[in-house]
């Protein structure tokens, strides 16, 4: 290689590398905060079939931020909300979070949908010390043990399972059975469920497994009937849950059914089952305290659908709204002299009653799993209604 060529080559490479470093501008006094803006980042699944767990939730968050901005901002600063796609993949999540922190230079992270992706992103967030409010990831290890700058506004994974056992007992059930799918998602709820049974000192009278995408649930239904279970806890996706409901109904067995959040919209689920009366004895747990068409949510429904015309208001928007209201309040409490430390401090001792949740989001210095109020929904006269609330404890 001639010297001139080598020089040109090295020069071009150095120029490209320098260009990249310049693109990543150096940090200012408090990263992500200017006199009139606060830049907040979201990482989560924004594309593909799981986008509702990310993008839809973030539309709810953004609706809250837009409302705050329209009211003059937070101490005069407007919130900018930047989203990066992690596609529910660990490698993508690491890239996304590094981009948010080092390229976009965000002040804090407000997001996180898939648990494994969020777990992959956590070390970078911890290393840099960025405050992080998790919107949807349920893995308990994200917030337990407590990290001073990490908080979640979603029910932790174990809470739903604990709530199901607690609710069965509260309803006076004595012979409780389980039907679960044992894939990744199912195991993450099944293991805490068994733990919850043990803590209550009871044993399930039957423990049935079913595939996530079954065509027949008759054998399981017959075994549940033989075990004379008066309540059945479902750890199932809607498709499997519909099959179990159909086949228990078919054999004339009508136990009290305790569903998970996957069937939280009981009315929609009942219509998918398609057999009148089959879901009458189903109560399902939910993170939120209202249905999407509840009059209490009408104002938010209008705001979200106006801001995002392609969206139909649903429970995922409501997760985002609750989380957004919590963050806005924390930013207000942190004051005009906003720092990562001050907002983390504000959140450490903060209780906010949000519009979509049945109970307050309450963080304490020893507990950053800040939402622990599970609401129960069932059909009353054919209409979905809230039928109970459980404050989940371990």
């Amino acid at each position: 290689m001639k010297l001139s060529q080598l020089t040109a080559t090295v020069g071009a490479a150095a120029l490209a590398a320098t260009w990249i470093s310049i693109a990543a501008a150096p940090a200012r006094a408090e990263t992500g905060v200017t006199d009139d803006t606060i830049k907040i980042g979201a990482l989560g699944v924004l594309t593909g079939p799981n986008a509702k767990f990310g993008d839809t939730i973030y539309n709810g968050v953004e609706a809250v931020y837009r409302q705050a901005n329209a009211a003059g901002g937070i101490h005069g600063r407007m919130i900018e909300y930047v989203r990066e796609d992690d596609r529910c993949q660990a490698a993508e999540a690491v890239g996304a979070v590094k981009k948010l922190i080092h390229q976009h230079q965000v002040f804090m992270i407000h997001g996180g949908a898939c648990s494994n992706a969020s777990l992959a992103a956590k070390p970078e967030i911890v290393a840099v010390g960025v405050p992080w409010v998790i919107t949807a990831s349920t893995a308990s290890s994200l917030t337990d043990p407590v990290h001073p700058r990490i908080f979640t506004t979603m029910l932790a994974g174990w809470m739903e399972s604990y709530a199901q056992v607690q609710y069965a007992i509260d309803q006076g059930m004595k012979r409780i059975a389980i039907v679960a799918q044992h894939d990744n998602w199912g195991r993450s709820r099944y293991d805490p469920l068994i733990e919850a049974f043990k803590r209550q000192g009871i044993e399930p009278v039957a423990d049935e497994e079913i595939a996530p995408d079954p065509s027949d649930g008759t054998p399981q239904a017959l075994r549940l009937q033989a075990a004379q279970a008066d309540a059945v806890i479902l750890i199932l996706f809607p498709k499997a849950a519909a099959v179990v409901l159909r086949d228990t109904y078919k054999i004339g067995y009508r136990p009290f059914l305790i569903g998970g959040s996957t069937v939280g919209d009981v009315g929609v689920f009942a219509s998918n089952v398609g057999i009148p009366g089959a879901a009458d004895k189903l109560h399902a747990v939910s993170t939120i305290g209202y249905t999407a068409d509840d009059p209490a949510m009408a104002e938010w429904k209008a705001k979200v659908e106006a801001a995002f015309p392609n969206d139909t208001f649903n429970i995922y928007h409501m997760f985002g709204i609750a989380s957004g209201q919590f963050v806005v309040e924390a930013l207000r409490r942190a004051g005009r002299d906003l720092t990562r430390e001050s907002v983390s401090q504000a959140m450490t001792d903060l209780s906010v009653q949000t519009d979509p949740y049945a109970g307050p989001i309450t963080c304490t210095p020893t507990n950053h799993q800040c939402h622990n109020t599970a609401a129960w929904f069932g059909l009353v006269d054919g209409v979905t209604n809230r039928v109970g609330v459980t404050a989940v404890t371990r």
Partner: protein
Amino acid sequence: MRRLFSRRNVVAAGLVFFAVLPFVANPYVIFIGNLALMYILLSVGLNMLLGYAGQLAFAHAALFGVGAYTTGLLKLELDLHYGLALVAGVGLATVTGLAVAMPALRLRGLYLALATVAFAQATLWVFTHWNSVTYGGAGFRVPPLDFEPFTPRPDIGVYALTYVIVLASVPLGWNLLRSRVGRAWVAIRESEVAAESLGIDITRYKAIAYVVSAMYAGTAGGLFAGMLGIVTPESFDLFQVIVHFCMVIVGGLGSIWGGVIGAVGLVGLQEVLRAFRHLQEIAFGGLILFTVLVIPGGAVSLLKRYLPGWKEPLRRTEHDE
């Protein structure tokens, strides 16, 4: 001007670029650079099996996972030095590659594809359900790596290690392909009957292809575990197989440099398209369609046609000295 983009110059520029990157770029850009380097290993390894030996095998992502899981678990459970854990990961992936090769040697075409897809799915099932060893669907965290006294930053340490391994592995593959082994692979790809009639031991050379490819995949897996700091089953699913195939096809099937270009190009494209979200999948699909329909030889075929020094003869030439 054409000489400026000769292979030597471009490779030299690439080497300098990746060498300078950790000194000037922010951690995000360094991570992307590391990802590209790691995918170069994967892509070059897959190209040997798929592009040169002509084996339509889908086990690569699984072997990548075996390397990652072995390295990560040895670090986590035994607190083994990362270097040793990486070597063990490469070793187990290689042995697994050989185990895959044994039945696969008797299969061809669609049957081989189906058998290796089944292997990939079975491996994924083990990653997901062997809770007591693999930590199931939630995966596990790899303890922080220590690269002292070279650097206090683990991300830079992994980057440097990946860079050095790529620096050694790509020329190794390049030389292998221009040796008797590479020529035997190409002969097998073109016609097994003809190759056998030339006295080529088909079983032996196919097995070598599986083993060498598995070594590259295992190495990439071990580096992936160190770079990410977490190992989860979904990182090794069938989508990963598709990504690896895309890199090889878009870069150039049956070309070492095609593998390199495909890996760097697709990682770069993926990052550029991050901002356009839904466009990403469309762009990826479009790129593959375009490559298959318009430039079936991949990006490297254009370089071979229009620029000097990009041809890859299966023998050493005086220009290589």
